[in-house]
């Protein structure tokens, strides 16, 4: 970057801070309508059209229930309610779990799967990128695993680990770690050679060069890998819950659909989508907190 000389002529101070000084924070461009307002309006419009179509009776409510019916189903799924109108027997939510418990069960599965993926994927990526022969030998397998749709091998995992949660943990782990490993390798390879040379000229040994330069320099890429892996694991877990997935938000969506309880299925679909967006936003926030330099240096 070149300093603007105009800014420098005007300040001939003694130790002369003639540089333009620290950069001002970047401003958002304020032209055009507020995008959030536009989005909110489109959302309201979509729901209005949906409501109109449903209330005019254009579509059989079993196929497309009204927004109100979906909302009622959502509320009821989070309450203890009579098993049928006018019946005394009470039931917790849906299939004996509240909807939020279904959601939590799915989140817990991806937490375990992605967590294990990070614990294995990051060190593996670091070793593969720094020890040449390990990279040469292992990389094709990681790429192979990544190319496989996880639901293609769920059957094998069920045969090995049974139909319970253990096979789902394995599935999510196997789905999560390849993107994390590959992102870590990309991060290590993307570190500028002179960034590492510089720390050696300051007196670092190999271990210090790794901990003070290589690891932090790789961090933004690792987090990006975790983001990709989490998104992938989320779509995978929802689909994997077709088998023995109660409690589980995907299991609930599927089970309710097969019983033609469309309102609850649609409520689940919305919850699944919103959760995916929230997870993504959360990881972006983590990145901005732990690697604030990303994209600036």
């Amino acid at each position: 970057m070149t300093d603007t000389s105009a800014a420098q002529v005007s300040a001939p101070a003694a130790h002369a801070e003639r540089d333009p000084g620290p950069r001002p924070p970047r401003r958002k461009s304020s032209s055009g309508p507020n995008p959030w307002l536009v989005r909110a309006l489109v959302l309201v419009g979509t729901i209005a059209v949906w409501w109109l179509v449903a209330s005019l009776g254009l579509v059989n409510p079993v196929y497309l229930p009204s927004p109100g019916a979906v909302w009622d189903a959502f509320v009821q799924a989070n309450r203890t309610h009579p098993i049928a109108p006018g019946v005394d027997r009470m039931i917790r939510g849906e299939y004996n779990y509240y909807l939020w418990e279904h959601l939590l069960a799915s989140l817990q599965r991806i937490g375990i799967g992605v967590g294990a993926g990070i614990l294995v994927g990051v060190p593996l990526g670091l070793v593969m990128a720094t020890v040449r022969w390990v990279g040469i030998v292992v990389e094709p397998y990681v790429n192979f695993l990544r190319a496989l749709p996880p639901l293609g091998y769920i059957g094998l995992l069920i045969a090995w680990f049974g139909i319970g949660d253990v096979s789902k943990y394995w599935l999510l782990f196997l789905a999560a770690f390849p993107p994390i490993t590959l992102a870590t390798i990309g991060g290590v390879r993307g570190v500028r050679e002179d960034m590492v040379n510089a720390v050696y000229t300051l007196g670092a040994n190999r271990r210090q060069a790794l901990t003070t330069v290589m690891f932090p320099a790789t961090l933004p890429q690792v987090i990006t890998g975790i983001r990709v892996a989490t998104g992938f694991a989320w779509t995978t877990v929802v689909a994997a819950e077709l088998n023995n997935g109660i409690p589980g938000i995907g299991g609930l969506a599927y089970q309710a659909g097969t019983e033609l309880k469309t309102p609850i299925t649609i409520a689940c679909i919305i919850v699944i989508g919103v959760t995916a967006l929230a997870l993504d936003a959360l990881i972006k926030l983590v990145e901005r907190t732990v690697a604030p330099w990303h994209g600036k240096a």
Partner: protein
Amino acid sequence: MRHDRDVRIDGLAHTFDTGDGEGVRALDTIDLTIEPGQFVCLAGPSGCGKTTLLRLVAGFMEPSEGEVRVGGDLVTKPSAERGVVFQQPMLYPWMTVRDNVELGPKLRGVKAADRRETAQRFLDMVGLSDFAERRPYELSGGMQQRCQIARVLTNEPDIILMDEPFGALDALTRERLQDELLEIWRATGSTVLFITHSVDEAVFLGTRVMVMSPRPGRIVLDERAVFSTPEKNLDADEIRALPAYAELVDRVRHAIHQTEPSPSR
């Protein structure tokens, strides 16, 4: 700091492997001894092999021929005795300016209080005390380069290798940093190898000025210069007005032009 170690460059040559079997011959045989405390300026057209020479002295790569010795010891890898100021400031954005400057002593296990004191001295010297808790990417280009210089100086290397450190700066910042660098060099007495493509900068700063020919680089001029020595108590403008100064600038310029390929090529 030890100021009794010379840099001996012996039969040094380098050819980059480009994978086409031929390679790029960047440096032709260089023989050169840099005495302790000298401020050597190396000028030459861009692409002539200046950076290659500096990287070989730094120990970043192995020469295809010849060797570099510092105080008699063969250079095989980078070391804290040879500080490097890179053309692009290689600051670490996950650390504050202060932590960047303190990094060398920290890696060597110097006590926190001691290294803090040294770092503060050099932060003051380059005028960055007010920005010590900022991150490097919050600084302007000139401030980043000063931060990098402070980081190298805090580590007290015997030899400072600088690769066109002021090349990307505007004229005013550049002249001020030149003055600061001279002050620091006079105060510390370290050995400096300073690469530049500016003839004026080379003559102004160096106690010894060298010119390198276009690729493959060879030393085609090697002259003493006296304008930066401590005894000369003149300010920058007075120095530049000296007839002897203009004379040396002419000779250096002439040497560069003579070696330059004809425009038709």
